[in-house]
């Protein structure tokens, strides 16, 4: 008989699934958005994404050394955080700002809580929030996508000083709300662009089609379930729809809201981060409705043109409470005392 027989608890087999595979799936789903960013905003976009990923991975590696824990960069979660952070910032953000955001995202967003699985807030959104608070101007400077302006074939660092800034669809939306005029015009002219991405906006959010493609990939691979994205989009749609019905000149039509800004991106990639979202299905519905509603609240009623980052962070804070509220009942019902 062989000497190397092992004895462990059952089960003795498992599905070939690992955390790394899950993260890899997310990274693959982000490829269309990365490609769109590269096409729309050229070299600097790809440099920014690469830079953020590198800094996220390096920061996690250093943090593991300091904590004297085994190296966790192999699980690719830092890579995903880097990509998500880069895709959620404006295309002209300087590389050094990307690095700062990455360090904050990993250290404050993940490591201080105890590493992957222990964090309360979405690390990429923590990084972005820090950048928004610290470098407000940089975070609200938008760029004309390259295909729109043939005069700017490459948005290289030297061009950044001279880039023409262009208001984003959400900025127009805000103007329309203030002026109570113009929404219809923007709807007609710009809706098609919100789908393809030839508009201003953050790196990953402009091309709605690319984001949708990635989102569908994740759904098919069962990496994410439909509950959170559906809840986010439906609740946002309903809120936007109500506003639109009230005043069509002031408020953009609901589909416009779905495809503008970071809502689609947030619905499929940010709000679905498993660590910071509820565990149960009922909890996921609540979470998604919260994200969608608060986003639209900020977009329509609040001062800020965009609300995804804040709504996700707010709902992340409430997730432990949601988990407690939405406990599962066993299949045979609650045990009778």
């Amino acid at each position, binding site marked *: 008989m062989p000497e190397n027989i092992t004895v462990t608890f059952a089960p003795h087999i498992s599905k070939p699934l*690992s955390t790394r595979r899950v993260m890899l799936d997310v990274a693959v789903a982000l490829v269309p958005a990365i490609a769109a960013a590269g096409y729309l905003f050229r070299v600097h976009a790809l440099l920014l994404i690469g830079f953020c990923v590198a800094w996220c991975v390096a920061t996690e590696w250093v943090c593991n050394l300091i904590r004297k824990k085994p190296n966790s960069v192999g699980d690719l*979660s830092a890579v995903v955080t880097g990509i998500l952070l880069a895709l959620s910032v404006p295309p002209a953000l300087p590389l050094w700002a990307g690095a700062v955001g990455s360090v904050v995202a990993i250290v404050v967003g993940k490591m201080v809580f105890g590493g992957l699985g222990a964090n309360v807030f979405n690390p990429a959104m923590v990084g972005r929030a820090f950048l928004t608070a610290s470098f407000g101007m940089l975070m609200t400077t938008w760029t004309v996508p390259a295909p729109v302006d043939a005069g700017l074939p490459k948005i290289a660092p030297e061009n950044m000083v001279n880039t023409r800034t262009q208001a984003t669809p959400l900025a127009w939306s805000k103007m329309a709300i203030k002026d109570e005029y113009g929404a219809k015009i923007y709807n007609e002219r710009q809706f098609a662009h919100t789908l393809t991405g030839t508009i201003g906006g953050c790196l990953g959010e402009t091309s709605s089609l690319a984001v949708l493609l990635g989102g569908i990939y994740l759904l098919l691979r069962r990496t994410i379930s439909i509950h959170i994205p559906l809840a986010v989009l439906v609740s946002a749609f309903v809120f936007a729809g109500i506003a639109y019905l009230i005043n069509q000149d002031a408020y953009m039509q609901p589909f416009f809201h779905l495809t503008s800004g970071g809502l689609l991106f947030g619905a499929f990639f940010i709000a679905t981060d*498993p660590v910071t979202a509820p565990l149960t299905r009922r909890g996921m519905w609540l979470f998604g409705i919260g994200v969608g509603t608060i986003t639209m609240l900020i977009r329509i009623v609040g001062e800020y043109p965009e609300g995804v980052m804040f709504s996700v962070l707010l709902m992340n804070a409430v997730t432990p409470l949601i988990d407690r509220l939405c406990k599962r009942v*066993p299949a*045979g019902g609650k*045990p009778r005392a």
Partner: protein
Amino acid sequence: MATTAQASLSFAGGVHPPDSKSFTEDQGIQPGPLAAHLAVFLSQHIGAPCQAAVQKGDTVEAGQVIGECHAFVCAPVHSPVGGKVKEISLQSHPVLGRSPAVVIEPNAGTQPAKPPFNRPQDFDPAAYESERICEAVRDAGIVGMGGAGFPTSIKIQPDPKNPKETLLINACECEPYITCDYRVMLEWTEQVITGIQLIQRACGASNVFMAIEDNKPKAIERIGASLKALGLSEKINVVPVKTKYPQGGERQLIKAALGKAVPTGAIPPNIGVVVSNVATAAAVAEAVVDNRPLTHRVVTVTGEGVTRRGNFYVPVGTPVATMIEHCGGVTTEAVKVVLGGPMMGLAIADLNTPITKAGGAVTVLTKDQIGKAKFERQETACIRCGRCLEVCPENLNPTKIAHAVKNNLLDVAERYYISACIECGCCSYVCPANIELTGYIKTGKIFLARQKKKMPG
């Protein structure tokens, strides 16, 4: 694995491991090896252990009582062969560590072949009184052969407070690799049907269902044909159910086949249902009609880690080592020997562990089958992906319970219904972080039992 029409009856949750039945499903039941010593445990059932009825040096006959019952929840044990009692000593047990057993040295030349079962031409279950059936079942020492080992006579006894209206025969065999029940259904068909009728007569059920997973079309056909030939198609309803693990769990089976939910903490008789395994039914037929005690069973030896595979009819008490040797021994890649299937089976260290009445398989696994991460037991952090919640057939929150146990918060574990866990292993199976959820939950149950003084330690 060709399946005919896919059944749709099922339960929520569950997983689909590869069924790996092709190794042994087409192998007929063969007589197994006769070991030099048989170690028959005095406790092969849920309930109080038997008291030894023989002493060292005694001569015993095949079928002689060697362990007597002195309690209600108990089942006697019998000697499978004629021989001599070598000793009564502690032998390796997969759960209890070590347990007392009667070690018997068979007489030279005793061959373990299954005696043929001839269903009487004019068989009518009504000719047997329920009491007589239950007594015969008890005296034969029959226990649940699907794995649980509950004394069958107590299960099938009629209970005026909880009338047993429905008899559900569990022919699912949902664990991967195992094919012993499948072969019993194909080869001992009439014996199984006779047993089902006797159980029905004993418990007084008005409805009888037989649930078979849809990956066993031949068995469904064979049983259907036999029932028709015997004129019993209306009396015993064959219900194909969707192939999914753990379809054979009685709570999941009752949900799928009967559409009823067994309340948490209750057992099927509380809702008027009796669930019985097919092999147990076959044993009942042998006990009542032929007066033979339960001394042998069919065991599947399988897995990539053993040289040859098959389904063998062996005496209870045969050491696992003897069976593995009979199959050509383990291969060089074998790393685990499991009593049972890969999802809920118990890994053993001592290959001299003997076969019990309730153990239907020996699965020898290689590192490839187990997977590198699982074999090396590399656990990473829980990413709260929720897959374990999705697959839990009891709708629990396995990660919460497991982490509560890990952090010694047993009250939290209780609040998340740790006692409702059926330990099926689905949660550990899907976990991407390779956390041993089932292991933590099992450990938590033991800690809780100790805390409540229900267990020593």
